[in-house]
């Protein structure tokens, strides 16, 4: 294996971390939504895609990438909350398959809607000027934008952690994830929490979409391919675990990037091999709890 | 003096992520009688029940059934070795009729993977299912979907389905939960009828009921066995009195 220098390796690992950071965002959103609402959000990829498109649109309209970074997640979160309130909530009593099916149908409509509104072939998106180029970190040069992505995700995770572990809202989310009855007994309006959590989850997915726009452009299909990855990361990390989402997301990103280097033909399949391995050894996921909602 | 136990636990303990639910529980259940497991809330009764029924695998210790070590046996095998249970929260097949509920329980012992023959033709299952429904007093509800039955009827059906496993040991988790006094009386009569040819182990909260129908009692507290004996023994037991002080008697 000639030509693989330590610099190249470091660069690939770093690329993997940046890629993984996006995956982490997706998995965290999925886990939040499932943990609180017991809904496997099959529209998560579609919200990611919607976020990317709204981000592109907002950037064009305002001329600022930074504005898009803030506006797009908020706008998509609003859409998400409307969906939760009117489409998904009626199905909570019916068993876990129905909300799942609804989100699947929702994704279908969202993708078609975007195709109608923005065309089928997708749109390019340039990396904002400030973040172009690369930064020299000791022995190798790392693309600035990817560094930025990692930084944003890390900041968001910190904020999320503080919210969940240190605030009363976070307490409700944690309690609700385990025992909705207790939350209701405490006199809190659970439905408001459902709304906010779904909004948060989809908003985070949208943020991931905006962040990934400079990396791969935007297309109506981008949500579908990323949904698979989000699911793999969730299964590997364990649903409902923040730590699991972080570890698994980064792991999948790095494995994929290294596979491109060492086994290019198997790169696409590498994450499935990882998933199969985890399922054989620890079916509930690396950080998942066995027996919860078996 | 005592016969070989039908089921016994030796040094059984159960830990859940740092929390110890049961510790070193040694219990011998005598055959052909009704034993009740009692204790205040959080004593570990449900955990112990789940270990006896195979739903949980103990962290420590062994479980022996009729002399054989069954620790770690797959949950679904328990019905085949002769242990059946009725759940605390009614757990039936909601859209099956009462008859079908019992019949499928019987079928599990005749054929589980048969792909070719018509199951309606399996000899005798329908008659035996009707007989079991009759035992629990539900013969006239045979064709009604389980979800349409009244709560007390569903609890009775729960027992009929458990009996479909032709068990030597019948485990019942709070069989009278949510029942009116009248329904409780009917259920108690039924349970009395079932003891003798089978061993019955009950987990219950209603002390008056437990004291009147049990032949032996097992008392748990904070996951440990604190007393075992006849109802009179238990009534006179100082520790048990202290543990239940303030809990009130049913």
């Amino acid at each position, binding site marked *: 294996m000639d030509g693989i220098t330590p610099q190249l390796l470091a660069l690939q690992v770093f690329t993997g971390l940046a890629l993984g950071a996006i995956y982490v965002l997706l998995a965290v959103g999925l886990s939040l939504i499932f943990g609180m609402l017991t809904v496997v959000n099959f529209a998560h990829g579609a919200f990611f895609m919607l976020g990317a498109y709204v981000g592109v649109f907002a950037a064009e309209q305002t001329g600022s990438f930074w504005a898009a970074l803030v506006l797009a997640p908020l706008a998509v979160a609003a859409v998400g909350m409307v969906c939760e309130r009117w489409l998904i909530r009626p199905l909570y009593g019916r068993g876990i398959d129905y909300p799942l099916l609804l989100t699947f149908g929702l994704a279908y409509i969202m993708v078609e809607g975007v195709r109608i509104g923005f065309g089928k072939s997708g749109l390019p998106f340039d990396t904002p000027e400030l973040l172009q180029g690369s930064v020299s970190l000791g022995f190798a040069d790392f693309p600035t934008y990817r560094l930025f992505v990692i930084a944003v995700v890390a900041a968001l995770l910190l904020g999320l952690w503080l919210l969940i572990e240190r605030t009363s809202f976070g307490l409700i989310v944690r309690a609700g994830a385990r025992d909705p009855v207790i939350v209701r007994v405490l006199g809190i309006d659970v439905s408001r929490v459902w709304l906010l959590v779904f909004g948060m989850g989809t908003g985070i997915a949208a943020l991931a979409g905006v962040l990934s726009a400079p990396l791969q452009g935007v297309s109506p299909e981008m949500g579908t391919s990323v949904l698979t990855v989000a699911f793999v990361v969730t299964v590997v990390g364990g649903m409902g675990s923040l730590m699991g989402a972080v570890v698994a997301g980064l792991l999948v990103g790095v494995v994929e990037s290294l596979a491109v280097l060492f086994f290019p033909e198997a790169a696409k399949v590498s994450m499935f091999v990882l998933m199969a391995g985890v399922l054989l050894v620890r079916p509930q996921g690396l950080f998942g709890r066995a027996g919860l909602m078996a | 003096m005592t016969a070989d136990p039908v089921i016994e636990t030796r040094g059984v303990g159960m830990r859940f992520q740092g929390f110890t639910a049961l510790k070193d529980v040694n219990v011998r259940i005598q055959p052909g009688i009704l034993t009740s497991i009692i204790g205040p809330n959080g004593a570990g009764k449900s955990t112990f029940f789940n270990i006896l029924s195979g739903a949980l695998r103990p962290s420590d210790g062994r479980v022996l059934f009729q002399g054989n070590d069954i620790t770690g046996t797959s949950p*679904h*095998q328990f019905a085949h070795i002769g242990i059946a249970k009725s759940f605390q929260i009614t757990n039936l097949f909601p859209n099956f009729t009462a008859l079908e509920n019992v019949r499928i329980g019987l079928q*599990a012992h005749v054929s589980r993977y048969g792909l070719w023959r*018509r199951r309606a033709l399996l000899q005798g299952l329908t008659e035996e299912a009707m007989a079991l429904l009759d035992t629990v007093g539900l013969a006239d509800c045979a064709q009604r979907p389980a*979800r349409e039955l009244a709560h007390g009827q569903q609890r009775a059906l729960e027992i009929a389905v458990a009996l479909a496993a032709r068990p030597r040991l019948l485990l019942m988790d709070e069989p009278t939960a949510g029942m009116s006094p009248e329904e409780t009386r009917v259920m108690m009569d039924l349970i009395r009828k079932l003891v003798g040819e089978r061993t019955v182990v009950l987990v219950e909260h209603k002390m008056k009921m437990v004291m009147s129908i049990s032949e032996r009692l097992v008392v748990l507290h904070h996951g440990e066995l604190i007393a075992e004996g006849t109802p009179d023994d238990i009534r006179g037991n100082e520790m048990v009195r202290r543990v239940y002080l303030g809990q009130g008697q049913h």
Partner: protein
Amino acid sequence: MTTTIKAAAPPIEIGTRHPARRALRAIAKHRIAATFVVLAVFPWLMPYQSLAINILIYGLYAVGFNLLFGYTGLLSFGHAAFLGVGAYTAGILIAQHGTAWWLAIPLAIVAGCVVALAMGLLAIRTRGIYFAMVTLALSQCVYFLIYQLPASGGENGLRGVNVSEVSLLGLKLDLLNPMQKYYFVFAFVMVAMAVLSRILASPFGGAIEAVRENEARARACGFDVERTKLLSFVLSAGFCALAGALNAIHLSSVPIETLHYATSGMVVMLCLLGGMGTYFGPFVGAALLLLIQDTASAWTEHWQLYVGIVFIFFVLFFPKGVWGTLLERLNHDR
């Protein structure tokens, strides 16, 4: 308690006087014959036979999926893998190895079952909530693997699956004639439906419904729930693989889209729109969806949007699907 889904056969009602219900009971008892009659007459009712053949094939695809979802209660989002494996196996054998159709088709079914065994062993041992996600992921894996296989033709799909004439026991069918091609496919579908009927009426049929109704109770009764699910998964894949093989012969090719996530999603929609857990529902769903597609795509290229809206509408208000709701209304008319 799970959702209320009708059991395969309507409950035996004592003293049914309603003529529609009596007719329904008679039909249910002879469901194979009834299906035979309806499907035999079907192509004469359709504007063109190709549509009828598509409905038949996608109906069979949905039948396989329904065995797992409607009857066993497991929601898989990866069934395109079985449709695809069946199609590519039959396609490659016929187009590149000159295998006879009567050997290629059974081999395609076997291939589908083998892939299902591998997928099922991974997907079933995990927590139930992961099942939809794992099946989706694993079928994407199958897609990538087959895509890279030189024999599959990659993006362009497989071409040259030419079976122009079949003869068996003296009977000759010209597959270039659409009507005769329909009856060729019809023969296989009827055999499959007969097999399905036997499976549903068998002890195993009772076992899978018990697992769907209440997994914990089924386990307590003595059913090995994991093994039951796995067997159902494999059988389900067999039906889908057959549909794939027939499709390869029908189109004389296998498009790579057969393995896409969209194809997995499509069968989910077919099954729900038609009626989960019913014998004939899948064909109703296939007819509904393909007819919508056929008519709507003439007016607008965005017919998929309308399908999606209809689907959501059904999920919210008619979860039993067209056929399932119809059966329910007829059976519970008091």
